[in-house]
């Protein structure tokens, strides 16, 4: 037997080491355009101690490790090894909800816990975690937060990594520390809870926001083996409103005001194509839902929690209606193509199967970045212009605009459906993707999560951050065993 396999079995047990061709093939590539490279093994640790042993082993043997917490399909290339000889470390067996604290609105979970698993459990306690838009049912909550996937309630987004708070980390050098306030206390979470600590402060410990070094890291700094997450109270009253418009520009000013006044819970902007995809009813042919829907919609979900929930909803509804009137827009409970109930049901739940982005054509390439709202029309123009040059049908492009950080920044996402079985289309979309990304970056779009081909584009523009990140990487993963080749971490 391969000595490495034997060593791995010694750590995680025979049943948790896989190297059959089918399993390895599944990890060799994903929905993105990254170069497919097969791992040599897939392992499934059960706990922090096994993860630590794996990391120590990886350092001794200089074996690359690729953490994976979410089930397929994967989209960004971060779970595909960038170098040969890698070991995929699946964290699915670490799927326990460790603690739910209603009073402090905190939950502590392991990386294998998904939104589908977590939300019903939290609901029993009158809580929920703010989700990103329509995550896959098998999406790891921790992975989503670590990758700074935007959540849909900007009002709760006091900082970009919210609602992620503390993490238990096995760093790339094999050391274990906890981030945030939990780093100041015992390694035993039970002991912390007995002492009244609930892992609520994300900062620190000491003078480093260690958790920030893990966010956006694509698993290149260490393994997060548990995380504490701030929850919302489960609303007991809800409504949802649409503010439709012909042009995106017509919704800019009202969007600014909605954010400024902290109105609404779930707030997002989307075009008709995006909405149709979200509703899962897009398709080719005449009478497609997309054409029924307004060109652009500002979606505002309003919720009431704790005391007087209906009145809270009512007051917000009236305040938003005043705002809409101010801008000559209408606040509606239904729009051609959908209703408030249908939309609410859609955005409050994970995606059903198949994953919503893939329903239309089977494949989808996402271009996303951060920006301020005022620049988005210009970026939209660029996207459409580049799409035109590649004869990609612009009406197909789904546009999703998610306010972040109380409206200071916006996640702007262009979804490009394509048929993965059509080689020509794949090549076309890949070129389009590359060209559009380059142009957008050149115009100032901020690709804060530089996956795949974006990494070089982004880090070539920011030499000092690149140097700094490499120094940081050498501190926490000196032998570059953690997902090498991602971001700017090319060499070991």
């Amino acid at each position, binding site marked *: 037997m391969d000595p490495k396999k034997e060593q791995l079995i010694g750590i995680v047990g025979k049943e948790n080491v896989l190297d059959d061709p089918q399993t390895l093939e599944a990890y060799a590539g994903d929905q993105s355009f990254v170069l497919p490279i097969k791992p040599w093994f897939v392992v499934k640790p059960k706990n922090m101690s096994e993860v630590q042993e794996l990391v120590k082993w990886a350092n001794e043997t200089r074996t690359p490790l690729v953490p994976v917490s979410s089930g397929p399909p994967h989209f960004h290339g971060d779970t595909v090894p960038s170098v040969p000889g890698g070991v995929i470390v699946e964290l699915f067996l670490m799927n326990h909800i460790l603690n739910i604290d209603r009073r402090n609105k905190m939950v502590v979970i392991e990386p294998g816990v998904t939104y589908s698993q977590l939300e019903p459990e939290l609901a029993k306690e009158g809580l929920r975690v703010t989700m990103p838009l329509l995550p896959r049912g098998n999406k790891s909550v921790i992975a989503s937060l670590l990758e700074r996937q935007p959540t849909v309630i900007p009002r709760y987004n006091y900082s970009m990594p919210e609602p992620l708070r503390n993490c238990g980390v096995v760093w790339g050098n094999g050391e274990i520390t906890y981030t945030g306030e939990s780093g100041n*206390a015992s390694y035993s979470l039970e002991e912390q809870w007995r002492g009244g600590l609930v892992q609520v402060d994300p900062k620190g410990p000491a003078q480093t*926001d260690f958790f920030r070094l893990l966010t956006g890291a694509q698993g290149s700094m260490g393994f997060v083996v548990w995380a504490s997450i701030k929850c919302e109270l489960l609303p007991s009253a809800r409504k949802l409103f649409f503010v439709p418009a012909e042009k995106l520009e017509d919704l800019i000013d009202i969007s600014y005001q909605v954010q400024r006044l902290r109105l609404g819970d779930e707030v997002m902007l989307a075009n008709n194509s995006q909405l149709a995809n979200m509703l899962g009813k897009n398709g080719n042919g005449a009478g497609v839902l997309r054409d029924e829907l307004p060109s652009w919609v500002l979606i505002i979900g309003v919720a009431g929690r704790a005391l*007087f929930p209906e009145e809270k909803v009512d007051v917000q509804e009236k305040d938003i209606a005043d705002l809409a009137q101010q801008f000559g827009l209408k606040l509606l409970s239904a729009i051609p193509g959908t209703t408030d109930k249908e939309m609410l049901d859609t955005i409050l739940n994970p995606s059903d199967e198949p994953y919503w982005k893939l329903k239309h054509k089977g494949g989808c390439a996402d271009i996303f970045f*951060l920006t301020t709202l005022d620049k988005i029309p210009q970026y939209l123009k660029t996207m459409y212009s580049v799409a035109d040059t590649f004869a990609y049908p612009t009406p197909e492009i789904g546009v999703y605009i998610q306010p972040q950080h109380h409206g200071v920044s916006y996640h702007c996402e262009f979804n490009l459906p394509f048929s993965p079985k059509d080689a020509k289309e794949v090549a076309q979309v890949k070129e389009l993707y590359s060209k559009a990304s380059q142009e957008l970056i050149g115009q100032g779009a901020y690709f804060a999560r*530089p996956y795949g081909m974006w990494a070089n584009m982004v*880090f070539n523009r920011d030499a000092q951050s690149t140097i700094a990140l490499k120094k*940081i990487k050498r501190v926490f993963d000196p032998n570059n065993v953690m997902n090498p080749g991602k971001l*700017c971490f090319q060499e070991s």
Partner: protein
Amino acid sequence: MALSRDAYREFEDIVGKENISDDPAFLDSYAFEWLAELVRPNQSHFMPRPVAVIMPASTEEVQAIIRICNKYKIKAKPISTGWYHWAAPLKEEDDTLQIDLRRMNRILEIDEKNMYAVVEPYVICAQLQAEVMKLGYDINIIGAGSSTSIVASACAYAGPGPSSFWMGNNSDNLLGMEWVTPTGEIIRTGSLGSGSGWFCSEGPGPSVRGICRGTLGSRGAMGVYTKCAIKLSHWPGPRELDVGGTVPAYRLPIPDNFRVYTIAVPDWDAWADIYYRIYDNEIGYIFHRQFNLAGADLGPALWLNYNDPTKTLGDIEELVEKPEIKELTDEMRISFQLIMAGRSMRDIELQDKVLDEILAEAGGWKVKRFCEQDMAEFTNMYLQRMGHKHMNFVWVGGYLGSWMQSGTPDWVKGYVPIAIEGLYRDAANGLLVECGGDALMGCGSQIGGGGMTGLEQFVSYDPADSDSIAAGTQHMIDAVEDATSNGFPPGKEQLYLQVGQKDEEIWASLEKSAQPMIYHFQRKIKEAFDPNNIGDRMYSILPEETS
């Protein structure tokens, strides 16, 4: 030790001779720091003298200065508005250059649409608040008040304030920043480094800002932060504050869409309950326990006395004995302040209704006297602008903050009786101000949206009295013991004490911390970013030999 003439000349060539000095009296004005007397040998009010003080006007000048510090192995210690003894040089044996950032005092940009402002280090909260209020915005002013530097609180120190519940901690509000590292590189974090503007502090990829600050910032020990962008929040009040009242107790009229309350509770359980309910119901614009800083036994008398311009401090002695004041003191013994702001009249009316229900459920009440117009307007002015924050020092000039461990309200209430008893005990010999054991002040939430608070004990001592200073020092030592023997980590006082400790003592306590690896990681970060060790020990590390 003195700066070599060559080094002095090189520094002078950068900033001009009028912006550098090694005059001993000038240097003493930087060595003199509040709190020094508590920890320095012979209760000296002076920290070690810098070898020179230099005042750059731009990032480029800062960069050049840092490079020379590297060349001559001089420690670089930036200071802006200068709060706490650790702002000064720390060790006699080090040559430390005090970099006074006073000349870097501009508001560079206010992006009205995208809700942020870009500032240099010497812009104070009051200045920026005044400017952004003209545009209908507000900023989180930290607990230390509006005379403090925004860059300092966001990048280099802590960041919570009375408005953090609604506006976020300044760590949350920090956007892009410009950092001159200890080797003289300029790192622009987040979107700024990518040339996309100031709006985002995260990324690309992992956030470099993660090594700039954590629970605390580097307190001047990891280079110089020369600019930062800070997130603004909506201000539903008047664009210009119509300040009335007579100095010192200025007053701010309360607009119709605001409410200003002092709320009291019967016990600390009710206190925690109300905090949680406020968090859950998301009411409140400013949420703070402020007035108890003067001591629960004397506070109400002090504040009423303060609002009478014909009175002096001595009048409190009589006032506090009046029956109606005794009654008031008991009534508001456990109290805090809540300012609510409505984006509309219906919003504020509902917030009011919610608050009344919370009080009914949890057994709290509005303190009538402090909700009357005069005191409510005083409270409004005080907490909106935080321009009286130096009432910390009102009794006799010396104040030290002990406790202040941060956690949930349930956890914080656990140390409250210990802190109260400790202060009663330590003040009983008359060497500290006897204002009551509860001189605890703290933010309703240190973090946006609620969930985390902390109470700082305001202990007043006379910095001109050797016995009182000694009592202050002893109190800090007692507070550490009180906390640790009751299962709590040491509080803020330990940070003060550490300034007077030798490296070995500090390392010994860090080694005993629950996860000392944290400090080894920080050592490695320091080695990577400050190989010539020009930053001082305010950035905490453990040496390799202890790993």
